């Protein structure tokens, strides 16, 4: 006889067994980063940024999707609320990871280099927005808001567990609705500050939207991948149904299409208008290895996952959908690198070992922190009224 799955803590899913190795891996990665920093500080800072953005996307996207889930309340969120909430609560750690970006500001962002700005009229005009104190204060504000919301939602969820009052649920929904407005705005400005301003003369009003959708896609891929790994354990295997994975697969399909939509629209409009402030951005990214990566993105970030996610027998099976999510997670990193690195390297492609070290270092610590957040609560939000409903109506099977 097995324990009631509704009372299954994540410990019994075996996820905590991966926690310690992950921490060790993270420390090794960060030590390597430190060595890299000693060798070449500029290379280190520039390598750190894309890896940071990659992990940041998952955390920020998780917060956004969690709030979307609280507002709309579809059944697709049944399995993913807890993993999303845990990922959203990695924000303080991500804020710590952001510190090297602030320290290395003049080495990463050309507008923070006083010598360059002095010679450039346009950059002087733009320095009203693009300046180091403003950048730092804004970043602190963004993180403060994200952390506030992540913990507020957790507090309301715990309160709802205690009192089960519809008022609490309503309050959580209201916070989430306001939070969606907040997160779209903050992600827009964060993407402008952190990524778009790498090429300070270039601008595209689609960029913030595109970035936000990228965050959502990364978070969906993360949470679906996590589920497919958890399903190997007995605790999850009995409640996770193919239809849950199919719903998540469909949502991922929608995000893949939205990603392609924003990316293509932005490209087409810039290609077509052919204005000299805008076009060099893409010219650089079409050249040599960058151009090859662009084709890789078209094929593996859109066409392949698109056709795979159209097929029901791929969406329904944990093993096959895990492949799609892994592909998408990898493509997120490649796209981020393709967006960021040409700003520093121009047309010459280079991949520093420090990028990899930063990716592994941050990832190891991040995963360890994530499992910490998942602990101490069930992996399924058992206290939600609609979970009860789902069990009663037989939509959610409980063993026994």
């Amino acid at each position, binding site marked *: 006889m097995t324990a009631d799955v509704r009372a299954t*803590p994540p410990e019994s899913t075996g996820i905590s067994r991966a926690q310690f190795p992950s921490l060790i891996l993270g420390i090794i990665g960060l030590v390597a980063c430190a060595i890299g920093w000693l060798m070449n500080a500029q290379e280190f800072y520039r390598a750190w940024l894309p890896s940071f953005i990659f992990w940041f996307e998952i955390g920020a996207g998780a917060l956004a999707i969690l709030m979307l889930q609280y507002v709309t309340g579809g059944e697709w969120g049944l399995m993913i609320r807890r993993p999303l909430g845990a990922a959203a609560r990695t924000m303080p750690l991500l804020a710590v990871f952001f510190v090297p970006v602030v320290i290395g500001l003049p080495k990463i962002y050309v507008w923070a280099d006083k010598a360059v700005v002095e010679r450039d009229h346009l950059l002087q005009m733009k320095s009203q927005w693009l300046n180091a104190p403003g950048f730092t204060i804004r970043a602190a504000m963004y993180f403060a808001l994200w952390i506030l919301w992540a913990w507020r939602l957790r507090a309301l969820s715990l309160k709802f*567990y205690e009192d089960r009052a519809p008022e609490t649920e309503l309050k959580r929904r209201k916070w989430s609705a306001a939070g969606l*407005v907040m997160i779209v705005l903050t992600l827009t400005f964060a993407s402008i500050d952190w990524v778009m301003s790498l090429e300070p003369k270039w601008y595209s009003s689609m960029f913030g939207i595109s970035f936000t959708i990228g965050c959502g896609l990364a978070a969906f891929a993360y949470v679906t991948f996590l589920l497919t790994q958890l399903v190997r354990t007995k605790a999850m295997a009995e409640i996770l149904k193919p239809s849950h994975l199919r719903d998540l697969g469909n949502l991922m399909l929608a995000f893949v299409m939205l990603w392609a939509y924003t990316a293509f*629209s*932005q490209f087409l409009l810039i290609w*077509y208008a052919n204005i000299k402030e805008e076009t060099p951005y893409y010219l650089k990214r079409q050249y040599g290895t960058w151009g090859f990566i662009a084709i890789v993105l078209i094929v593996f970030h859109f066409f392949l996952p698109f056709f795979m996610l159209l097929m029901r027998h791929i969406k329904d099976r944990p093993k096959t959908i895990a492949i799609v999510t892994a592909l998408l997670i990898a493509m997120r990193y490649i796209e981020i690198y393709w967006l960021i690195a040409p700003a520093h390297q121009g047309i010459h492609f280079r991949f520093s070992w420090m990028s990899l070290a930063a990716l592994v270092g941050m990832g190891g610590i991040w995963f360890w922190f994530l499992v910490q957040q998942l602990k101490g609560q069930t992996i399924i939000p058992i206290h939600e009224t609609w979970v009860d409903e789902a069990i009663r109506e037989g939509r959610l099977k409980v063993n026994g």
Partner: protein
Amino acid sequence: MAEKETTPVHEVRPTTQELRVPARFIPSPTIEPGHSFATITDHISTIVLRRKTPIGWLIGFLISLMGVGILTLSLTVLVGKGVGIWGINHPVGWGFDIINFVWWIGIGHAGTLISAILLLLRQEWRTSINRFAEAMTLFAVASAGIYPALHTGRPWFDYWLFPYPNTMGLWPQFRSPLMWDVFAVSTYATVSALFWYVGLVPDLATLRDRATNLWVKRIYGMFALGWRGSAKHWYRYEHAYLLLAGLSTPLVLSVHTIVSFDFAVAQLPGWHATFFPPYFVAGAVFAGFAMVLTLAIPARKFFRLEDFITMKHLENMGKVLLATGMIVVYAYAMEWFYGIYSGNPFEIFMLKNRATGPYGSMYIALWICNGLAPQLMWFKRFRTSTFWLFVVAMFVNVGMWLERFVIIPASLHRDFLPSSWGMYHGTVWDWGVYVGSIGLFFALLFLFVRLLPMISIFEMRTLLPEAQAHHTEGTEAQ
């Protein structure tokens, strides 16, 4: 695990625990209680099959026909004299024709959104409004189609827009966004019509079976294609319907995206913005839901459909209005941010001129209509009041027209050289075509509610609890 015992999170409460839920948290139903398959069928089909035409319908239809008369007159003069009778001239070459085209196409988008996207999202409340909204889509597209067809100047050559091998050896120029429009709008019209018709077939069979007049029976029977409700047919039918929904969703996004390309591919400040595609799509859905509310609130009262179009529907539409309104506000605000951030003097001039130039008052009115008015929808009190919903919807209808005015003539009228500056005002013929197209839209809608069931009967039947059949043990299907 012992140390964790103090935390309550692993405790399992009995699932049958009584929850005392205050009345205001009990969701309102998508169909009022007390209905059966028969009453739903009879109530909705009688509106169509009754012999006596209500006097209110006749009055409304006649007023709409007057609009059609104005349209006919305006178009006759237009074809006879040319587009010079409109207010367009250098530097404003696009005026009411494009404003109204975009306005109408945008209104159409809510229909497809309700029927396709909400179906995919399994939102049951769409069921009683999808038919009506789809009809609205078709008629809005018909009204929209008038403008691009006539603004070409020589509408008798419009067939040149289609690619066909011809003796002139000419081919259309596919780099032009106006060619993309031709394909987008005609595909949209075709697929919307198919979607609508496929949804109608089972209901046409109902009308065929319920009609008493032989000729009425024959006509409905012809369009019902011999539908007999076979289980095998239903299976493929539902499959096709879902596939169509899946196809319509990207289609509807693409249509307004391509409309936005008309502007955004240009280099003109105020037009060239890469976020135009999602901004236009959100604006279209916003405008469309406002129009659905504008039509549904009086219609449900007039035809006594309160049982089927409940407060839940209206409230949800209010929520969609708020959500899309927020996206539109995001666009208005970000236009300022990116304009200033760009450091481009032409962008900054355009923004200043937009707010304080000759058309500044329209820009302020636009913010009031689209920015402020929908904020009322944050409050349940306003979302559940038909009066306030109608007021907000009217504000949005006006606001979305103003938005297109602000984008089109207000961006064009200040050219790069002050010597090329000008002003734009619609002439009486501009207004004539506009009022006429509204008349056409309403005339078609009036015909629709008289001749076809305005609520999907067969889908309403599935909302009843007794429509759910369950497998009994021993007869597991395989």
